[in-house]
């Protein structure tokens, strides 16, 4: 196990370097001079001298590779520079907004699990029944529904018409329900389908037949031999999904005025707060990579073939 984790972490190094390189290059996509933007945002007239001073300060005059290593050195020390707008360290800002987003994503994840596991399991066990058909249609629609539109439908029905739940802001648990549900439904649809397929595949495995032939109780077979095996591809995909949820929360946060990273990044984009955009990219990529690592570790604890480095 320890060796597996170590190997997996070492394999991350080139990926992380690639991520840093890509993020570094991003700032050079900006069609205007960042120094000029900085000055405008600071209400200083961008005269030639002022621009030159700021460029020097930002290190924009050095050769590119020098800029990269300087930047990387700072990033390794968790210094992402300062926001053009608030003049505060970007890292502190991101960490300030991140908990709200994490909170939202975690709640959604819980909803995804609560929906997709029972529905996926039962629609596989009762394949082709009315229940299964209805679930499949709902899953198809769920996967095609734009989250921003779904959120308006939910707000309109549950909040404005029935007055059951608050539509905007963060605070009580009730505030969490609508945004988390909106964020969850698309993924729940995908996972229900994935789990159903995976369950059906495992139900046809030889070891399930052998388990029946040994006289095990059907419930035990479903839980231990079918479900546990069926969950492995689902867990692998979950690392990705949680990352996509953190990213997808951009839209949901903006609809529900949820004070998380997603809202922060959109306002930063409109403010042309380039250091924030750059840091956001790096931050999300690292979180995403770590989540995938985490999912792989869970898989390894589930599956001895991965853990003990077997073939197959």
């Amino acid at each position, binding site marked *: 196990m320890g060796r597996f984790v170590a190997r997996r972490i070492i394999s991350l190094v*080139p*990926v992380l370097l*690639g*991520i840093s*390189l*890509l993020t570094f290059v*991003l*700032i050079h*996509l*900006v*069609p205007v001079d960042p120094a000029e933007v900085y000055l405008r945002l600071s209400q200083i007239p961008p005269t030639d001298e002022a621009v030159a001073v700021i460029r020097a300060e930002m290190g924009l005059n050095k050769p590119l590779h020098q800029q990269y290593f300087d930047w990387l050195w700072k990033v390794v020390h968790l210094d992402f520079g300062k926001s053009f707008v608030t003049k505060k360290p970007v890292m502190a800002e991101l960490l300030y907004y991140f908990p709200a987003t994490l909170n939202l994503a975690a709640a959604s994840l819980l909803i995804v699990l609560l929906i997709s596991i029972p529905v996926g399991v039962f629609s596989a066990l009762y394949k082709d029944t009315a229940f299964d058909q209805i679930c499949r249609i709902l899953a*198809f*629609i769920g*996967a*095609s*529904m*734009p*989250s*921003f*539109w779904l959120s*308006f*439908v939910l*707000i*309109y029905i549950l909040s*404005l018409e029935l007055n059951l739940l608050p539509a905007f802001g963060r605070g009580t648990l009730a505030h969490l329900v609508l945004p988390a549900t909106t964020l969850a439904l698309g993924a729940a649809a995908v996972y229900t389908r994935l789990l159903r397929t995976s369950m059906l595949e495992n139900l046809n495995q030889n070891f399930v037949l052998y388990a029946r032939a040994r006289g095990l109780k059907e419930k035990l077979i479903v839980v231990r031999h079918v479900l546990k095996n069926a969950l492995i591809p689902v867990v692998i995909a979950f690392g*990705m999904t949680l*990352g*996509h949820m*953190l*990213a*997808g929360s*951009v*839209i949901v946060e*903006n*609809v529900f005025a949820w004070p998380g990273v997603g809202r922060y*990044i*959109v306002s*930063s*984009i*409109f403010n*042309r707060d*380039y250091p924030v*955009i*750059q840091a*956001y*990219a790096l931050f*999300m*990529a690292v979180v*995403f*990579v770590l989540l995938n690592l985490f999912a792989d570790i869970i898989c390894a604890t589930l599956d001895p073939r991965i853990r003990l480095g077997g073939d197959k």
Partner: protein
Amino acid sequence: MLQEKVKGLYRNKPGIISFAVLAVIMLAGILAPVLAPNDPVLVTLDNRFAAPSTQFPFGTDHLGRCVLSRLMYGAIVSLGSALLVMTITITISIIIGTLSGYKGGWVDTLLMRMGDVNLAFPDLVLTLVIAGMLGPGLANIIIAMAAVQWVWYARIIRGMVLSLKERSYVLSAKVAGTPGWLIVVRHILPNIIPHVVVLVTINLGMVVLHISGLTFLGLGAQPPTPEWGAMLNDARQYLRSYPRLIMFPGTMIMLVVISFNLLGDALRDVIEFREG
């Protein structure tokens, strides 16, 4: 064989229906200048929030603009930009994917490394960030989406090319001294294009979703351009009093996405079933 496939597609009801829906929407968009009842950007403040009538079949929005006309013009913006994204993506990825699969070498190494890095980002984050750096605007979103997606397609195409390269007819063509580009054009491209068409169709729904999502955030088409995501954004403030303003563009987006998904599934069944 092609005929058989066309027949198979013809028998696939969801496929046919979704194709028809998409064709109608696309036509409505193209013919909007002729068919649309009103000017989509004409602001008439006297007519704000007008109920559906003969003059405004779907009513008007907060600036008194005709909702139906905006939906029709919007079709070409929403669908057209999605198609444009796909065209750019596919052109790049076919060139690079084929080169990397057939020739190998540094192109291949570079593509694989880029793929690893690309996979390390959630798609939406990278798109958002590139679009953010470039600044708001429809063109920038299209560039950002293509820039993020092509790597993925190129890697898939590379895989297809690699497996085709080992087929006997390719090997024998090689032995016969056929030049590389001719083998690619004659034997490889015709074999990968059907699969690419399936991939593209299935993912077009996703592209439409992302484009309208980014426009909804204000990053895409700028006012007063009629675009479905932008219409949703305009309508959100009036959700309580005029929910219909939300219903129309939302339903359109969903219809298009569902249709692309169904059409993609149908194409996959027909094209990939036999080749397995």
